[in-house]
């Protein structure tokens, strides 16, 4: 709901459909994802983040834009590159950093790790590390909503590389024929792990150019513009909630870091990263806020409060104990244990 206070200065000529309150939330979310992931990277260099981790630095507008368009009860299905999507649904930074740092305060107490972030209470129904696996799973959650008459939407995030695995195509067809309330979000960051997506895909737009095969609209958006992402998400969610079926949205973006922590991304052509950094989603959005008359003080206050959350979370995680050994044997089965025999 737009209020007088939300509106941009009269005569600015800028689209004010989003409103100041939501714009500040979108900005805050993007900065929070950036700072938290940058911190994860720094902690990795200090050997405090273990295992692997896949960062979304540079792709924050997509996670923030979709999450801000979601309402309580909507469900997120993420990939192994899922820190941003998990945080964007409101999961505390401490819970995510704790999991990355293998501490007992982690989201899953160290039993899942970076690639499997899950927070059911926030609607984050899991992060899936097998490419494509979660697209059919999101269909199933949407089928439940359809069957029970629930109004929630299942939102499934994945990368450009996922568009070449079978489960992607099975899920799109399945969602289309059953008219399921599911929204598929392809984050096209131009690289399938280390390989340019264009080198291994028959079409220019790996998701959108396949949409017509499933009777879906071809949608390609600027994934570095949180407003555009937010508006597109709202439209797709409204369609899903109205019982009009799935959407497939391809968001063009770029990851600033390598595929995983082991990847220095030397395969990039010279200058490509620098070019994309000019289109950094947070830089774009900070300028947008200023165009709408948001003061430097307001922006700095958001930046400072985010940094404080991340700093506090870091200290809490450093002080947290490692998980107790007895949880090795818990929650294999629903009775809480692991017994496979009497």
């Amino acid at each position, binding site marked *: 709901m737009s209020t007088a206070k939300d509106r941009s200065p009269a005569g600015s000529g800028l689209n004010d459909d989003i409103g100041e309150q939501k714009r500040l939330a979108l900005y805050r979310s993007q900065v929070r994802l950036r700072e938290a992931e940058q911190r994860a990277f720094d902690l990795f260099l200090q050997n405090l983040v273990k295992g692997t981790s896949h960062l979304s630095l540079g792709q924050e507008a997509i996670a923030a834009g979709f999450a801000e368009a979601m309402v309580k009860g909507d469900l997120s299905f993420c990939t192994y590159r899922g820190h941003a999507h998990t945080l964007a649904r409101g999961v505390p930074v401490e819970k995510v950093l704790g999991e990355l740092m293998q501490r007992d305060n982690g989201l899953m107490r160290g039993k899942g*790790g970076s690639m499997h972030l899950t927070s059911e209470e926030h609607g984050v129904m899991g992060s899936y590390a097998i490419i494509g696996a979660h697209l059919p799973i999101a269909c*199933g959650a949407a089928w439940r909503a359809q*069957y029970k008459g629930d109004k929630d939407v299942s939102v499934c995030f994945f990368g450009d590389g996922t568009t070449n695995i079978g489960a992607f195509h099975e*899920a799109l067809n*399945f969602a289309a024929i059953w008219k399921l309330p599911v929204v598929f979000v392809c984050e096209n960051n131009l690289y399938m792990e280390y390989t340019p997506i264009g080198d291994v895909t028959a079409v220019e737009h790996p998701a959108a150019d396949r949409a017509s095969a499933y009777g879906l609209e071809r949608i390609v958006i600027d994934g570095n513009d949180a407003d555009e992402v937010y508006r597109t998400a709202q439209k797709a969610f409204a369609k899903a909630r109205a019982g009009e079926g799935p959407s497939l949205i391809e968001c063009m973006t770029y990851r600033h870091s390598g595929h995983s922590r082991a990847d220095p991304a030397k395969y990039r052509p010279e200058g490509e990263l620098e070019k994309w950094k000019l289109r950094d989603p947070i830089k774009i959005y900070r300028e947008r806020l200023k165009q709408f008359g948001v003061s430097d003080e307001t922006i700095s206050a958001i930046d400072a409060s985010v940094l404080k959350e991340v700093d506090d979370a870091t200290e809490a995680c450093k002080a947290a104990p490692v998980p107790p050994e007895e949880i090795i044997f818990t*929650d294999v*089965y*629903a009775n809480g244990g692991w017994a496979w025999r009497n």
Partner: protein
Amino acid sequence: MAELTYRDAVARGIAQEMARDPDVVFLGEDVAKAGGVFKATVGLYEQFGPLRVRDTPISEQAILGAAMGAAMTGLKPIAEIMFSDFFAVCFDYIANEFPKSRYMSNGQTKCPLVVRTGNGAGSRFGAQHSQSVENWCMMIPGLKVVAPSTPLDVIGLLAAAVRDPDPVIFLEHKSLYATKGEVPDGEIVDTLGTAKIVRPGKDCTIIALALMVSRALAAAEILQVEHGIDCEVIDVRSLVPLDTKTILGSVAKTHRLFSVEENPRLCGWGAEIVSIVADEAFYDLDGPPVRITTPHIPLPAADNLEDLVLPTPARIVETIRRSLGS
């Protein structure tokens, strides 16, 4: 009490659970309007309607993935994979997704679903439509695995599987669909993780599963009549959870163990049980445990060839007779 085929027992078991709980839904290829390629789900579409009994495309990953998403969010899906051999094209869900989600999320998520499938040989379908894949499933932590041998057990174990809060792989044997058995009227619910002594005996224990149970019983009859060997036959029924108590108790009584397994030899389910018995009941044994299995080969299609490779009553009799030295 009525006589029912194993095939009709499947439909009755599903119907019993769908009538009891509106959250039970059923999906698979050709399962609704066509009533299933084995005719095991005839009438369900008519009884429960198109929202609860749904035909899917040939998309095994979509079938199992959708079942999982529905299960995670509140439904109790039954998914059919037409032939168990097709587990190979959707094994990610069976091996990586269903059984690991709860553990990885530290208990936040649930996955109460049943995957029904036609398992086993005898139909001359060749190496990609005849396999016994129970050992593929048994090796995965987080799954439960059952394989009924009678119409009564089909209903009771299916009901138990649907009501169970964990993912259950339900292996129906294709060569049993036409077999008949007595089934009482009214609701039938069994217990997962329970083996059944289907023939008491004192000289040796034979453990068997699904189609092999009737062959073990036939062999036991011949051994009794022709050789004076009194076999105890156990229908294992549930590989996970495994009722080791019943098996170890039987071995303590008979002092000899034979498994009859349709799965190919390496890592067959009997190997795990033999290992448990060797660990925990070695001094109860009067001789080596012996596994009678399908050889470690892909299954041939021709009548005479397929018949030769599956354990038969004659092979069971011969193996046990020789092992017991009578």
